[in-house]
């Protein structure tokens, strides 16, 4: 009898364990792999030289180089086994050249041949002004390459670069003019394949089944695949979003056991794992390469259908007969997409920042965030009610920890009806927001794209009446399942619907919203709990009879865009929107912020968050972050502290947690840990003037705030594969700590110049690895030759810091020089676009610091004024002992003494400090050390 009881307990335990197990791990089998994805499987199985197309009728037309791609007669009778269906209609190719080294390649079906349907071109991603940057080609030159039977056509691309269309075999490439070395090439291995749309014949079975879902595929196969080679490349990077290393590991070829290609398909993946090529919440089909010999180049394919990308290991094509110019360091890639057209861009670089600039010329730079958004954000699923909000808010003050935004997750709504409030929990939302705002704090609420199918819900009523929902394949409103239960999804592809949606954010429409309320878009992949792969069926129909398969990856982007437009509209274009989105696509950077979704409280997830965010940065989205502490699970205290320390240096800084986790606000783990987390957050706040200047740089040039080391040190090969450390701007190097009980950390400091420990000012020689203390904080260094502006006074939030004085930290290089910038504006409006900002350059040389104006001089327009002064100037690496300094033009002398690098109890005065120069930050001045 006893044994039965024991057995029973054991069984219960087993049952419980299996239960837990079944919900706490990534459901790999619920997502399609390449073999289960016919277009991917077909494309992967093709051998080099599969493509038989040749270019004919090459001509200059409307400033482009155009051609028709046809299959020569002798191949038509002899089609490949797997492409027997390919119609022999010609394809249209065009090559366009844009300013600053951008080549655009488009290939589509010939509209004059009346294809069954127009293939989808992704609208509203390319900047409208991009077309104005086009160079109108006037002529081409002909050339014979490798003894080809047909001519190749060469056009000018950029100083020292040419674009070449090789007609037979078909190849498009960019080369250096003088050396003739290829930089980037298309179809060099003949893997190009374009499945043209055709009329369904009797007996054609186009349906695809995955698990319980059937995709009717009414238009049949329409996939595209091709190979792209990056020449002179040591590594390739980019194509987010994957939880993986910064440099992309090969996925196919010799030595690769079995790997999936990198998948780009926006998915809500429950408990994703690090080190996986599987697709996550967002997709950017933009890859960068970097190598010692050429530098950096990039390739971007504007396509919103499911994409799979193989990075091919060297030797993958060893059986093939072709020989490209012997370029040891070439990286070949295979790009496959289910639908759409080829609209692609080649970026010549050659410097890392050039490629990012070129890419953002096409898709736009990051929007200038409001200052508050660069501070710390506190979120949880869920801060339950108004009292909870009040308590959390006051605890920050009680512990003197600054923060700027308090977030409310889905439970704040009335039954997951967005734009509404649970009036039991939140009876007075306006009061609540105003109370927060009285201390300068903002609030963010969540608004998702799934709309509860409830006749009493005004959004649903309007959307269904106006036909604003995505339709299923039969033309009825698509009915899926998400948080509210049965839900439909707003068709955000239609500009009219986006405009309607944007109007919903007006204060009169969104009852309970105030000007200090901003928005969070979640679940916009879109996440559909009962859909295939937890998303929308591919045969669902959008505006213009576009199938969901054609635009899936851009759906969340349009939703994000519409929400951002809503916030813009509600303040008549005067207030910069803040909208956080989980899904993203090229162009997302113009509309807001993204985060890396539902991560887990594990050390490996802290580690992978760094390459994930760096990858987003180099592919245009600079304002991104990961949930501090990890969304799922309870971080141990040390992990949480380390997470704060690392995340404080990453662009978007938000703590967030699942509702099953323990509370983890920074004051809940004992005095010492509160102190450590407070310090991490405070350091972030002291550096906000620097961060804000960097956000402006990103806004102007596209160069991200958080940068891979190789972006700043493109010549230093030791940095190419380093994703444990990163640069904030050009001045700070941050080394993360990703292991338990780490007392010290080994940091590789690039370049030959000296680096200064951010806390102590200790100097370290560059060009080698250094073992440094990591006990109280992660190692951070200021690069010599830079000047970093800070605000050292701690406040409740960014709002109260507005009038605080600045500290400048000057780290001199070996020649006694340094430079830095400071950008200031009102932190919220668009007046900066009219010149209302302060932009200074600080130059130090020969013992003299000079402040120079970098702002465009606009005599008319609004001005941004600031009475802020500089209260302290710290000099690192200054050898002569000065006692005083002369300030011009006021011609007064101020003291120079030893001071602390950071004012904290117990530190020793160790660095040379110019005391109270009290010059205005907006003025021209100079300070000479005496």
């Amino acid at each position, binding site marked *: 009898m006893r044994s*039965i009881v024991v057995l029973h307990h054991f069984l219960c335990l087993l049952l419980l364990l299996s239960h837990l197990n079944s919900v706490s791990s990534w459901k790999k089998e619920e997502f399609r792999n390449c073999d289960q994805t016919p277009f991917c499987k077909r494309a992967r199985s093709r051998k080099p030289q599969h493509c038989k197309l040749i270019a004919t009728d090459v001509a200059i037309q409307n400033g482009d180089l155009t051609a028709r791609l046809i299959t020569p007669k002798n191949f038509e009778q002899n089609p490949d086994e797997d492409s027997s269906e390919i119609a022999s209609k010609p394809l249209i190719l065009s090559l366009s050249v844009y300013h600053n080294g951008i080549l655009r390649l488009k290939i589509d079906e010939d509209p004059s041949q009346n294809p069954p349907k127009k293939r989808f071109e992704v609208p509203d991603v390319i900047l409208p002004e991009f077309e104005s940057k086009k160079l109108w080609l006037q002529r081409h030159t002909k050339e014979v390459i490798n003894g080809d039977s047909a001519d190749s056509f060469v056009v000018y691309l950029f100083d020292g670069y040419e674009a070449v269309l090789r007609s037979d075999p078909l190849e498009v490439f960019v080369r250096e003019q003088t050396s003739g070395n290829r930089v980037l090439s298309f179809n060099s291995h003949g893997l190009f394949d374009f499945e043209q749309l055709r009329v369904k014949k009797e007996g054609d079975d186009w349906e695809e089944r995955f698990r319980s879902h059937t995709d009717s595929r009414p238009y049949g196969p329409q996939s595209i695949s091709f190979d792209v080679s990056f020449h002179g490349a040591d590594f390739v990077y980019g194509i987010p979003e994957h939880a993986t290393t910064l440099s992309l590991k090969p996925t196919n070829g010799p030595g690769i056991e079995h790997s999936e290609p990198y998948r780009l398909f926006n998915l809500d993946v429950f408990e994703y794992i690090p080190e996986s090529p599987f697709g996550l919440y967002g997709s950017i089909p933009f890859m960068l390469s970097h190598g010692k010999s050429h530098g950096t180049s990039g390739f971007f394919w504007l396509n919103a259908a499911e994409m799979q990308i193989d990075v091919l290991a060297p030797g993958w094509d060893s059986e093939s007969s072709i020989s490209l110019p012997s370029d040891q360091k070439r990286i070949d890639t295979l790009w496959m997409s289910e639908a759409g057209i080829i609209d692609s861009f080649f970026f010549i670089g050659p410097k890392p920042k050039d490629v990012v600039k070129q890419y953002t010329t096409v898709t736009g730079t990051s929007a200038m965030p409001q200052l508050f958004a660069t501070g710390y954000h506190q979120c949880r699923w869920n801060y339950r009610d108004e009292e909870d909000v009040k308590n959390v808010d006051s605890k920050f003050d009680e512990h003197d920890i600054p923060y700027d935004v308090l977030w409310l997750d889905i439970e704040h709504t009335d039954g997951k009806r967005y734009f509404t409030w649970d009036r039991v929990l939140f009876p007075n939302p306006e009061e609540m927001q105003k109370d927060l705002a009285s201390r300068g704090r903002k609030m963010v609420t969540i608004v998702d794209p799934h709309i509860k199918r409830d006749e009493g819900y005004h959004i649903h009523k309007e959307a269904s009446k106006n036909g604003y929902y995505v339709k299923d394949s039969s033309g009825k409103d698509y009915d899926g399942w998400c948080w509210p239960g049965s839900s439909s999804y707003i068709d955000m592809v239609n500009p009219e619907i986006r405009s309607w949606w944007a109007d919903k954010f007006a204060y009169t429409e969104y009852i309970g919203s105030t000007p200090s309320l901003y928005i969070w878009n979640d679940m916009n992949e879109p996440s559909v709990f009962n859909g295939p792969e937890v998303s929308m069926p591919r045969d669902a129909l959008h505006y213009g009879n576009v199938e969901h398969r054609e635009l899936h990856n851009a759906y969340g982007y349009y939703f994000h865009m519409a929400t951002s437009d809503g916030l813009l509209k509600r303040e008549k274009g005067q207030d910069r929107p803040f909208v956080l989105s989980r899904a993203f696509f090229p162009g997302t950077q113009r509309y807001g912020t993204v985060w890396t979704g539902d991560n887990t409280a594990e050390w490996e997830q802290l580690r992978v968050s760094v390459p994930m965010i760096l990858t987003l940065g180099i592919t245009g989205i600079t304002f991104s972050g990961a949930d501090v502490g990890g969304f799922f699970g309870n971080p141990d205290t040390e992990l949480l502290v380390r997470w704060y320390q690392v995340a404080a240096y990453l662009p978007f800084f938000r703590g967030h947690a699942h509702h099953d986790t323990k509370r983890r606000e920074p004051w809940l783990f004992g005095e010492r840990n509160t102190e450590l987390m407070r310090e991490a957050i405070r350091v972030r706040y002291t550096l906000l003037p620097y961060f804000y200047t960097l956000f402006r740089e990103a806004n102007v040039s596209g160069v991200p705030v958080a940068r891979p080391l190789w972006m700043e040190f493109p010549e230093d090969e030791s940095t190419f594969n380093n994703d444990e450390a990163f640069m904030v701007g050009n001045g700070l190097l941050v080394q993360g700590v990703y292991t338990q009980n780490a007392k010290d950390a080994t940091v590789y400091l690039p370049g030959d110049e000296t680096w200064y420990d951010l806390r102590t000012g200790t100097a370290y020689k560059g060009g080698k690895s250094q073992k440094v203390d990591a006990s109280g904080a992660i190692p951070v260094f200021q690069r010599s030759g830079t000047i970093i502006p800070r605000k050292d006074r701690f406040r409740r939030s960014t709002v109260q810091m507005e009038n605080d004085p600045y500290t400048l930290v000057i780290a001199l290089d070996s020649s006694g020089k340094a430079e830095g910038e400071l950008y200031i504006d009102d932190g919220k409006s668009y007046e900066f676009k009219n010149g209302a900002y302060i932009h200074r350059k600080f130059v130090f040389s020969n013992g003299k610091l000079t402040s120079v104006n970098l702002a465009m001089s606009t005599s008319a327009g609004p001005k941004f004024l600031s009475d802020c002064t500089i209260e302290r100037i710290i000099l690192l690496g200054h050898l002569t002992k000065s006692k005083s300094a002369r300030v011009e033009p006021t011609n007064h002398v101020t003291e120079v003494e030893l001071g602390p690098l950071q004012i*904290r109890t117990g530190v020793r005065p160790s660095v040379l400090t110019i005391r109270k120069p009290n010059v205005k930050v907006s003025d021209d001045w100079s300070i000479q050390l005496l």
Partner: protein
Amino acid sequence: MKIHTKILVFFIFSSTLVLISSAIPPNELLGIAPEDEIYYKGLWSSGTIKCKDGSKTFTRSQLNDDFCDCFDGTDEPGTSACPTGKFYCTNAGHRPLTIFSSRVNDGICDCCDGSDEYYGKTRCNNTCWEAGKVARDRLMEKIVIYEEGVSIRNNEVVQAKVSLEKDKENLSKLKNEEKVFKRIVQHLKDHKEQIEKAIEKERIQKEKEEKKKKESELKEHKDEDKVDFAEKEFEKSNEDHKDPAVDVAQNAHLSHDNIEQHTAKKEESSDVTHTTKDIDSLSKEDLGREIGSRWTGKKTEHQHHDDDTINVDNEENNEYNTETDEDHEHYEENDTNDHMDVQESNDDSSSSHDYDPDDDAEDISDMESTNSPSLVEKIQQTVKNFLVTVNPFQTPVNTSEAENVRKEYDEASEKLSKIRSKVSRLTKKLAHDFGPKKEFYSLHGRCFETKQNKYVYKVCPFKQATQEEGYSTTRLGRWDKFMDSYGVMLFSNGENCWNGPDRSLKVRLRCGLKVELSDIDEPSRCEYEALLTTPALCLEQKLKELKNELQFLNKDQMQLHDEL
């Protein structure tokens, strides 16, 4: 006399203030607490003083010059320049306040006198008079409560002492009784066994004689065998019944029944688990629910809740013996000892009561669950009576004597087991930590309830805490201990949460005249908090502090009036 001292104190205080004030310009003293002013005196006599941490010296011109020279903030008490500094606001008419330097000139009025915002960008009204009045009124209310609370508490402390003595007395009495009964039971047992042996012996002998008869009268003796067999069976089961082992066996039997039930339920739930894995076979709606539940855990939690209930059943079954004994005993104990409690719980029945009603209910349910064995007992009794009456055999051993011995033995051993459980229960009770003055003694054996939305929360100090919704009860925790020097009661090891921790409850204790439960909160999932007011927390020391504070506030008030 009292007034005199007050005036004297006031005079000394204000004259020091005047003395210092005359020596140091007041604006330079900004942000310095009066008791701290003495530290800065040297700035006016010698021109420089040390930072408090000794790290540096600073001059008079560096005091409050909006540049941080001392890293501990000594030189900038009145500005925001030092990150670790503190700013003191006088707040005449109200309590003085020390705030973080980061609040100085940040555009937000932190001091009711507005002294923290002197840049002029933000205008702060002086609200100290109004705020001070509110604070004083509140303080006075609190003092009234404390005064009464302290006397209730003192009473309870005395009461607890008496009750505890009684408990101890009872315990030693019971222990003596236990010894006595142990001996009696042993004696009866020996006696009973002797008689039984004699009966057995006689029976065997008779059997031998019968055998001979049987051989000749085989047909007639058929019935007799049957009876013999039945009697034997009865004796065995009767004996077993007195043996504690039988309870285990019965219990095991019960458990077995439950296990069958559980297995059925388990199969159900494993079916669900199965479908969890094979989500493809779900309907669209169920699929949506299933996938969504991964994030929310809701549906699966419901599933799990069933499991929990099973566990509870199971545990209750395991504890069946001791629980019922204890409860039974407790019932008696209350009858005799805890009259006061009963009365009190009657007074305030809506929010607090003794365990008994609850435990009675448990008793009833337990009775129900043990229904069948008692039925068996009845049947056995009938069979036995029948046998006694129809038994055709006469034995030389006096059967009635044997019966009496048996009966006596039964009664005595039952009594012994009752005494034993009383002893164990009382020992357990006395082992509890009732606080340094035993001021929490009166909370033993009582429960306190509060309703929030659809849930009724019930806290039984030294026992357990539960959350009830309709007929379902979830245990939030078993009594664990006091925390934070008797400021918090901890109930831990409650029912497990799906994908989460075991439930737990922290009850913050606060001085109040009645014992009342309120403010149930669940700040993290399945980690509950509540507030319980009790006179046990009305400490004399605290009352003194409150009175001092009021005195201070009133004095301040007087001063303000004088100035006005």
